[in-house]
């Protein structure tokens, strides 16, 4: 008996997408919002988030930034040194200085040498600093939304935050925005 690789004609049911494809023009009719979930507090990630937020607003897209966990640190006033109510919260703020001008690099921080060099290079090549981009973003109407849970856990008060922040909300609001009309960016 010879084994031949005879192609067997079998009906293979190709799974069809369950949803009806939306025509192109309907996409255009409902522009999407951008929602950046800023979770990280490092200099380079804060920077990236500020570049994307200001550009998104400049492109006429409704832009929101939900600031949570370490991402919150950039939205505490630069002048604040110690935040929190109990010794642990105070210790946390002591160990990582809050404020957008005091972010550390995730790599090559070298006790502040890295961020200092980044700042020098940015000036030399006319790259706007995270703080300048944040101000531009606020001017163009980017909504910065604090996370209530982060405020509670770190003992952060509304007066610790920079001016112009939105009302603090929780995760449900974030998911609500995402399922509604927002493109998510988790940084």
């Amino acid at each position: 008996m010879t084994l031949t690789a005879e192609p067997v004609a079998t009906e293979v049911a190709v799974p069809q997408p369950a949803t009806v494809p939306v025509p192109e023009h309907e996409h255009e009719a409902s522009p999407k919002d951008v929602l950046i979930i800023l979770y990280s507090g490092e200099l380079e990630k804060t920077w990236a988030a500020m570049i994307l937020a200001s550009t998104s607003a400049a492109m006429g897209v409704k832009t929101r930034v939900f600031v949570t966990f370490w991402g919150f640190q950039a939205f505490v006033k630069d002048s604040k040194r110690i935040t929190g109510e109990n010794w642990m919260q105070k210790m946390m703020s002591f160990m990582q200085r809050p404020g957008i001008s005091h972010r550390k690099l995730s790599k090559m921080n070298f006790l502040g040498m890295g961020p200092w060099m980044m700042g020098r290079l940015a000036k030399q090549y006319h790259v706007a600093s995270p703080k300048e981009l944040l101000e531009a973003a606020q001017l163009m109407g980017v909504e910065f939304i604090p996370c209530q849970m982060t405020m509670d856990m770190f003992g952060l008060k509304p007066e610790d935050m920079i001016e112009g922040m939105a009302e603090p909300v929780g995760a449900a609001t974030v998911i609500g925005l995402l399922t509604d009309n927002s493109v998510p960016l988790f940084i």
Partner: protein
Amino acid sequence: MATDAKQIAQVVDAKGLSCPMPIVKTAQAVKMVAPGELIEVLATDPGSTKDFVAWAKTTGNELVEQTVDAGVYRFVIRRK
């Protein structure tokens, strides 16, 4: 169609600035002029040639002219 200098309502000098500041400054300037008016943007960021096309497409403002002269990119935009 070459635009006459007197038709320009506002000039944005973004020379020397890096991404995303030319776009950010343009977006702010566009709000200062009336719909239909022209603004002129000067930039040196090579990425701006593609960025301004994308910006115009998304915002609906019209990119009327795009030229380059001695490393300076010039964009003329008509406000929607």
